[in-house]
């Protein structure tokens, strides 16, 4: 299971589900400048960028992945705008070709001989920060299930879809347990849909990353998210190990009280799929 080769003939899909409720407009604890919504939008843009680069074959972007970005807050809607507006599932080649804007900057990289050099880099932007309204998590998961069912009816074989869900609070429209379990029961011939949840906290609380049992969790809310988090398949564990994240056989794709670094790692592990790529080797760099 979770071993199907991801090809253009047999692509997989990734759904990024983002809490865009009003509280996402708050800052992280100890960081009065950076708001959660801004940081999450930045990480999502980087994630989309990395997925595009991973599929880039010289001048062509190959459709190994189809991507959906769904936000929930004032309402539940797809987060793409511009030419991609209202599209639920977008082939990665279209993601590549239709960012809202492409920013230019410089990045410091090692020259391999002990010094640093500055090289020009470009940062495409697809998603802008949004923080407004309540936390209609159940409605959002129902929307995700609809998207998945449409995808799976056309792609019953191949690597199962992955849902990366990020939230900073409890659901305002009921218990997400049932709809979460329904999503996790869907799948392809290569395994069930992977639903991973990352809860981030404004307060400085002990974070819990990729637990193997709910007994370590502090409250009912944490346990309810744990219950609808899939175990990490082996190849995701390898990616976690490469990032220095402790995850073992039986670890769930679940983070509670995560901080900014948890978010970055959550997206990196959640999109690792077939493992790290040569592109990642360039990550020994700094952005100026």
């Amino acid at each position, binding site marked *: 299971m979770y071993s199907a*080769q991801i090809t253009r*003939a047999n692509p997989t899909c990734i759904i990024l589900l983002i809490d865009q409720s009003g509280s996402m407009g708050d800052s992280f604890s100890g960081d009065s400048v950076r708001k959660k919504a801004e940081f999450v939008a930045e990480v999502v843009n980087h994630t989309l*960028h990395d997925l*595009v*680069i*991973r599929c*880039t*074959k*010289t*001048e062509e*972007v190959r459709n190994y992945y189809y991507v959906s970005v769904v936000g929930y807050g004032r309402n539940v809607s797809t987060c793409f705008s511009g030419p991609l507006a209202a599209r639920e599932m977008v082939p990665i080649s279209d993601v*590549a*070709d239709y*960012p809202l804007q*492409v920013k230019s900057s410089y990045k410091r*990289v*090692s*020259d*391999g*001989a002990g010094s640093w*050099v500055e*090289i020009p*880099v*470009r940062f*495409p932007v697809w998603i802008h920060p949004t923080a407004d309204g309540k936390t209609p998590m159940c409605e959002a998961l129902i929307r995700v299930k609809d998207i998945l069912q449409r995808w799976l009816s056309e792609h019953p074989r191949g690597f199962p879809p992955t849902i990366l869900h990020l939230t900073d609070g409890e659901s305002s429209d009921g218990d997400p347990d049932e709809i979460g379990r329904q999503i996790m029961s869907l799948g392809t011939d290569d395994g069930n849909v992977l639903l991973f949840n990352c809860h981030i906290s404004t307060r400085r609380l002990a974070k819990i990353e990729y637990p193997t049992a709910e007994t370590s969790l502090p409250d009912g809310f944490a346990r309810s998210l744990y219950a609808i988090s899939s175990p990490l398949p082996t190849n995701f564990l390898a990616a976690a190990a490469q990032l220095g994240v402790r995850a073992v056989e039986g670890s769930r794709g679940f983070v509670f009280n995560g901080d900014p670094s948890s978010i970055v790692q959550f997206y990196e592990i959640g999109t690792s799929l*077939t*493992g*790290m*790529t*040569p*592109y990642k*080797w*360039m990550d020994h760099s700094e952005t100026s």
Partner: protein
Amino acid sequence: MSTAKQSATWDLQLRQLLLPKLDHDASECEDAIAFDIQTARFAVTDGATEAFHAQQWARNLAEHWVRNEATLTLEEFRTWVATEGRELHDSWNGLTMSWYSEEKARTGSFAAFVGVEIDLPSWKAIALGDTCLLHCRGSALLKSFPLSRSESFNSTPILVASNAALHESTMSSAMVESGVCENGDVLLLMSDAAASWCLQRFENGDFDPDFLATKEGVKDDEELRRFFDGERQAGRIRNDDLAIVRIEIKRRIN
């Protein structure tokens, strides 16, 4: 075939096979094979699918290396790769690229490399990555280089990088090896999927010494293609490009 370097007492019998992934066109194959009779050099390279112009980089490395006279020490190899990388990146100057191609070009290209120079009865090889040289005697495996076990192959090998910024960290993984041949010995140069499969056959004790031989009764090219397609469809070989060079060492009968 005869090479300029071999003595009058030796002969080399060569067979090669280059196959793209299943359901892929031959033009998409990112493995490369090259040899040069004058230098008695043979090389197999495997361009990293996700890299920028991987096919071009793999071909450049193989074709240019076999035509070279030096590059059999780590230092020479390092200098030579740096020059090749610079030339590759220079060839992209002035191209109008999308943001993603630009990003990809900045990272450069990657390929696994194994090259051998035969000066009978000796051979000397250099490798970086997971393309391999296997020295076989009958059904015995004398040496497998740089990887020696089928389980050693993974999806993140250190590869020959075209980007100068990555040279130092990758080149430290390059290795040289040498050996001495006897009559009937076989040298196999293989890209990763084929090498992993072949090593597994040795580990299971079912390696056929006539595998890819040119003698009568063994598979012709079309049969071989069907055989490897079947192995890949059955999952016994990963669905990857396949490059195999078989060099059989023969003592001439005067």
